[in-house]
């Protein structure tokens, strides 16, 4: 095969990675932006979403699309509820102290991982894609489902953008992000906004996970990579900036796809991680973010 097909394949794979990644990172970025905390358990919410997707899809017999749709609706709801409970029980009592929160979410990470390992087991399990169409491209056929993943994540990102910029809920969230104390003075229930944002962030990760399980199997250790990549994306994009997050996810997804087609995936990850660490060292506000007030 010539260079062209490889590049097209790499670009498509990169776009799929970017689509899933931008949803996951968006959740992390929202939580960081509004609440000013780093949620280390974010990857486990992703993993939980994937495992629950497998569970819900096995409940339904018949056409695979039914089970998938059920998972797409229920899995983010359940994950959001788990996040809500852990926020109320733990994070709120820590008063959102950044360092204590990191330690607590590391604890949460282990707890979720262990529970899934005990209940679900160490196997990787696939979910059948809701439809199986191959779309003919000039050199090869490409999975129609993967293209649908890209479309779906564009839709969800657009919906999140609409929620943030055009609705009252979004206004309240942005006000809390801008200045917590002033927002509270204006009668915004900051406490409830935090709970909602934490649940929303986890639910976004779960949606991304449901979309990804037909491509990548559900496994109890699958949360670490999305967590690290989301960190990378959120940092490059500038913490708490929606546009930056999406652009950075595209950048990382595409370069990851292209580098791993031509080089070893380990080397690709090494280079990407090192580059991002350097960005954070020399430009802490990210490539698109503005300096913290």
């Amino acid at each position, binding site marked *: 095969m010539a260079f062209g097909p490889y590049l097209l394949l790499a670009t498509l794979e990169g776009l799929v990675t970017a689509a899933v990644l931008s949803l996951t990172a968006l959740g992390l970025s929202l939580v960081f932006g509004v609440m000013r905390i*780093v949620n280390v358990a974010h990857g486990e919410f992703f993993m939980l979403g994937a495992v629950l997707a497998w569970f819900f899809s096995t409940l339904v017999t018949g056409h695979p699309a039914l089970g998938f749709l059920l998972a797409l609706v229920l899995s983010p709801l359940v994950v959001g509820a788990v996040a809500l409970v852990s926020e109320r029980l*733990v994070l709120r*009592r*820590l008063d959102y102290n*950044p*360092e*204590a929160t*990191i*330690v*607590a979410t*590391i*604890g*949460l*990470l*282990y*707890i*979720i*991982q*262990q*529970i899934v*390992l*005990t209940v679900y087991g160490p196997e990787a399990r696939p979910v059948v894609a809701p439809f199986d169409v191959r779309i003919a491209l000039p050199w090869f056929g490409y999975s129609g489902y993967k293209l649908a993943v890209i479309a779906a994540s564009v839709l969800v990102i657009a919906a999140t953008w609409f929620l943030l910029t055009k609705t009252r809920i979004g206004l309240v969230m942005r006000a809390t992000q801008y200045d917590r104390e002033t927002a509270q003075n204006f009668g915004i229930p900051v406490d409830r906004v935090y709970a909602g944002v934490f649940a929303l962030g986890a639910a976004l990760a779960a949606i991304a996970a449901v979309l990804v399980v037909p491509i990548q199997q559900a496994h109890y250790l699958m949360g*670490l990579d999305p967590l*690290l990549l989301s*960190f*990378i994306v959120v*940092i490059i994009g500038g913490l708490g900036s929606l546009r930056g997050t999406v652009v950075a996810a595209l950048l990382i997804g595409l370069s990851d796809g292209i580098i791993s087609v031509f080089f*070893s995936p*380990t*080397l690709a*990850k*090494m280079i990407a*991680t*090192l580059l*991002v*660490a*350097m960005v*954070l*060292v*020399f430009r*802490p506000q990210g490539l698109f973010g503005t300096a913290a007030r």
Partner: protein
Amino acid sequence: MADKTAMRSLLLHVAVIGVLLALNFVLPEYHRGVFSRILVLAVFAMGYNLLFGYCGLLSLGHAMFFAAGLYGAGLTVYHLDWGVAAGFAAGIMAGATLALAIGLLALRTTGVAFMIVTLMFSQVFYLTTLYFTTWTRGEEGLVLRQDVRQLGLGGVSLDLSDPATRYFVALALFAVVLFATLAIARAPLGRVLVAIRENEERTRMLGYDVFANKLAAVVLSGLFCAAAGAAYALLFGYVGSSFAAIQYSILPLLWVLLGGAATTLGPLVGTLFMFYVIDIASGFTSAYMLVVGVALIVLVLFFPRGIVGAIRERWLPWLP
């Protein structure tokens, strides 16, 4: 008064070493092995404590310093046929050099960014050990044979794989690092580090070079952790990339928090406690990660100062 306090805490530390020495003769074989491991890992925790407890810098990447010591010693002994002493020195040098480089870069950031940057550098180190599988054998790791783990000491050859020798060497390293930590905590450097932790701006305004002091803390911390790593490789004869994984960055944080940050004996207490909690818990259930997770959350919620920290707060305010 100050002299009396200093004397008292010195005596306490000597007594702790004495008890640990005596334990070698009374502990059953299995627990003696566990204790040698705990002593080496407590050195790792003490290195972590120097930076996190005293200087207030939360690193999520200390596995790379431990692993630098581990590989610095393991690779030179395995591939270059270096002696044990030379390998140990190579491990320490590798860790200190890495810590200097990482410190120069990572200390440009603060707070959350510092945690994430150290996490990422450590991840790069981990991936590097996987990438050079030809030399490191990745997750599978290298096993150092018994005949290369001989320490020549003035004509006498010590077999580091012998349980008693292993225990004494681990205890010797532990004692050196314990008293070094005590000395640092009392020295001007330790005081400045605590001042930086409490109020960085004010310390800078008083004329202290904050960056240089922090860098010193990172290098010393990296050096202690590398010493633990090098000792681990030589005493237990196994070098694998799982020691560079993210889990080994979180464990020292857990041990230090459990035992008590910024206390000299906290890291030992925390490591000991956690090891035996997992040991006992795994007798009942294989779900030991659950124990770790719950322990972390309970700790930050109810005992933010750890075991030794709580004892100091309630009963023994002179505890270093």
